[in-house]
């Protein structure tokens, strides 16, 4: 999504493009290895990824920003993997972006129309932000039209839709109780297209990148869970991958911030960590070129990859399962009593959380996109 320092000319494959930039085959395979690891593929898959990436042309990406804070765009701007990371973003031609486009007003609206028309049926639509539905949608207007109107229109010609961030996923902070503007996510509006939810407030930029690579490489979107989140990133709970997990198992907890336990890096469960109820790539991918992640920097997880986390995971510093919407409300009293017994009770609470989430984790595959990007039928101007 970045404007690239290594422009890619029409008709050039990634392989040719890399070569012209002086990137060796070896560097490229190392990169394919990294991206394969991110996608959870075995080493055997690396040559396949390399071949697929080398063959594709530069497909069009249209990025719509609806009711949102631009944090998701910023997150993608921080994507990791230096130099070769730019390349991943350079896999696409970013044909519409509020944040980055040079022109404004009519000029960019025309660019959007052209991109839709030229790439009809083939472009990837990235959406950040929710859709306000109250009062006929007047709470977010773009170029004089409602956000919903623009989304419905642009989604028609999309090969696939990436709903990036908690707002596009389910509405996020503006949809928190009492949801004043009636904000909803993309899947609540667009029902006839494959939509992948890149969950998080914001999500890690690298997950967005990896999802695009997945689509380009395999000609279909990745498999997802019942929330529409790619399994390669959201398939496991934070708690099961946490670098502080050993302290949970040993009953070693931070009881108040900056206590001796905090200074030893012990488990944050007692100060509200929602890691046991949160499916997220944070512990593995980490943030900002793998510098750290929330729990790594001493703050409990607030569960931002889970739907309705502003209501179900708060108060953020209350211990699971005491928080309001944890989905095991009937058991709160029971668990509360058990928790008083100490660490083993914590394990019990977390076992129940696991059960709840296992039920929710029913895998749901998205429809396979028939035509690989760039290889679809000439759709011309229909509906543009």
């Amino acid at each position, binding site marked *: 999504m970045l404007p690239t320092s290594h422009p890619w000319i029409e008709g050039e494959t990634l392989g040719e493009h890399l070569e012209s930039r002086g990137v060796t085959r070896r560097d490229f395979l190392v990169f394919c290895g990294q991206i394969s690891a991110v996608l959870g593929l075995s080493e055997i898959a690396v040559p396949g990824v390399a071949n697929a990436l080398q063959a594709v042309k530069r497909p069009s990406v249209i990025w719509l920003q609806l009711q949102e804070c631009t944090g998701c765009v910023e997150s993608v701007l*921080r994507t990791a993997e230096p130099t070769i990371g730019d390349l991943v973003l350079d896999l696409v031609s970013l044909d519409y972006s509020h*944040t980055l486009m040079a*022109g*404004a007003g009519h000029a960019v609206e025309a660019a959007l129309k052209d991109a839709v028309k030229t790439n009809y049926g083939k472009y990837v639509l990235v959406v950040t932000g929710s859709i306000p539905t109250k009062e006929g949608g007047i709470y977010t207007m773009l170029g*004089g*039209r409602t956000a919903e109107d623009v989304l419905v229109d642009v989604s028609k010609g999309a090969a696939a839709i990436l709903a990036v961030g908690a707002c596009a996923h389910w509405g*996020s902070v503006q949809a928190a109780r009492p949801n004043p503007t009636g904000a909803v996510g993309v899947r609540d509006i667009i029902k006839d297209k494959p939509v992948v939810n890149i969950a998080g407030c914001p999500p890690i930029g690298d997950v967005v990148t990896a999802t695009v690579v997945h689509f380009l490489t395999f000609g279909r979107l990745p498999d997802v869970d019942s929330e529409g989140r790619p399994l390669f990133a959201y398939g496991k709970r934070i708690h099961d991958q946490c670098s502080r997990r050993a302290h949970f198992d040993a009953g070693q907890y931070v009881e108040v911030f900056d206590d001796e336990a905090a200074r030893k890096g012990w488990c944050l469960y007692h100060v509200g960590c929602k890691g046991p109820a949160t499916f997220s790539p944070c512990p593995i991918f980490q943030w900002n070129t793998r510098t750290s992640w929330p729990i790594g920097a001493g*703050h409990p997880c607030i569960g931002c990859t889970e739907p309705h986390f502003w209501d179900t995971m708060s108060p953020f510093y209350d211990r699971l399962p005491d928080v309001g919407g944890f989905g095991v409300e009937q058991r709160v009293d029971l668990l509360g009593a058990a928790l008083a017994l100490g660490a083993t009770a914590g394990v019990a609470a977390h076992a129940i959380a696991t059960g709840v989430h296992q039920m929710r984790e029913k895998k749901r595959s998205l429809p396979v996109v028939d035509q690989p990007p760039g290889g679809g039928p000439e759709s011309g101007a229909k509906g543009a």
Partner: protein
Amino acid sequence: MAATKVVVDPITRIEGHLRIEVQAENGKITNSWASATQFRGIELVMVGRDPRDAWAFTQRICGVCTVVHAVASCRAVEDALGITIPPNAELIRNLIHGMQYVQDHVIHFYHLHALDWVDVVSALKADPEGTAKIARTISPWPNNSATYFAEVQNRVKKFVGSGQLGIFTNGYWGHPAYKLPPEVNLLAVAHYLEALDWQRDVIRLHTVFGGKNPHPNFLVGGMASAINLDSTATINAERLTDIADMIKRARRFVEQVYWPDLVAIAGFYKDWAAIGGGAKNYLACGEFPEAGVKDYDKLYFPRGLVLDRDLTKVHPYDHMQVTENITSSWYEYSGGEGAALHPWKGESQPRYTGPKPPWTYLQGEPKYTWMKAPRYDGRVTEVGPLARMLVAYASGHPDVKAIVGDTLGKLGVGPAALFSTLGRTAARGMETVLLARKLQDWYDALVMRIKSGDTQTFTKDKWSPDKWPAKAQGYGYLDAPRGALGHWVQIENGKISRYQCVVPSTWNCSPRDDKGQMGPYEASLVDNHPLVNPEQPLEILRTIHSFDPCLACGVHVLDAQGNLLTEVKVQ
């Protein structure tokens, strides 16, 4: 000749959704309207929440200024509950907020503002040797060879040649208002690309202390990142070294790339020092506490107001003089259209009266925006880098006086040049230079404290709600990259009963008030402002971008039930 009606919607390269309408006649703008077209309602969402969670909710007002609402919120809650944070936490917050300024201002210059002044297509015609010569004259930055610039130029050539122009599609390339020689355009394009890599690196300071960026984590009472030199899981020597290096790289880029580029480019656009001034009053609420938030004399950037552009006097800032007006906004007040309410008495009943979508024009509508109109003592007031630099300059701040004097000297213009589109952009660069230096001071102070055995980052005593009074209220100020910000919180029985923010872009993007006074964006667009070709509104983008609009921040208020919120007395 009749006036031409012009609509620019969306305004791109900003945060959020902004529509500008103007009327133009004989190449000049004669009238203007600024409309914020997005509305989210975060303050209402706050009611009934745990005040210790408020920073996380309000932080999501904006993902670009991703630090400022969180810190302002922590300050408001800490003020209400009588919490003083430890000096280490204050230093860490200053480092985080300081780096936010530096990173945000550089991104603004290259990625949001530069294309208003830099013609990417013209860079193709540059002689890379000439660019290298210019680069070496203005900076010792290592990437200044003809080979390097030729490589960048080749990439751009290929890009333009591909026909897939991506974000550069339908730019205003070749517009007569672009004045830079091709060689300088090439220099700026090269640094546009370098800045993308740079920003991703230096912002990792947020990740070390806050676990992620955007939206790093904060904590009422201090910071959650514990310090222990003998642990692998805390702030230790390895983490501190990483931070120290980031600070060095941040400063080097600012001093050797951003600032020299800005001064060089400004030299070609001196006419813009007489364009786009607009509002005549400037407000700074002060920032970077060095002895606690209550010691206003020890803020690195001072607070106060410059009125009627009189730089001989600084007027004291009193937040009780702030009122909000809704004459032109899609709200209604129980006291009538003309009422001007202080935030403590604020009402936020939305009432959309605009045309049914899709819109053609909003000009001529009595109400045309979701933005309220804040005024200071009834005056239209600008906030942001220019306001901060003017208030500091008029206060006799030595660092600011030096850099303002030096810059005006280099450009050969007087202080009056500051009241302009160019002045706004220059002021942003000046404060970035000062803060890039200041980061080192805060880092050194933090290391000294740790060395002396103080590793405290959190004040525990009032963390638990059973230590709180039944009723409390607090005010948190913060001068953010885009200007003066205030959060007001009221707490009853451990829960938020009311939350209110007055935000930089609300000040600057405000519409006409009950007296018909235009807001700062609007006023700037009719202040000696050209618009040569209404089809290519490049000049409008220059002035609007000089404010660095952040619309999601500006509009956030909604009380869907339309309740008259409880009136309270200021402490």
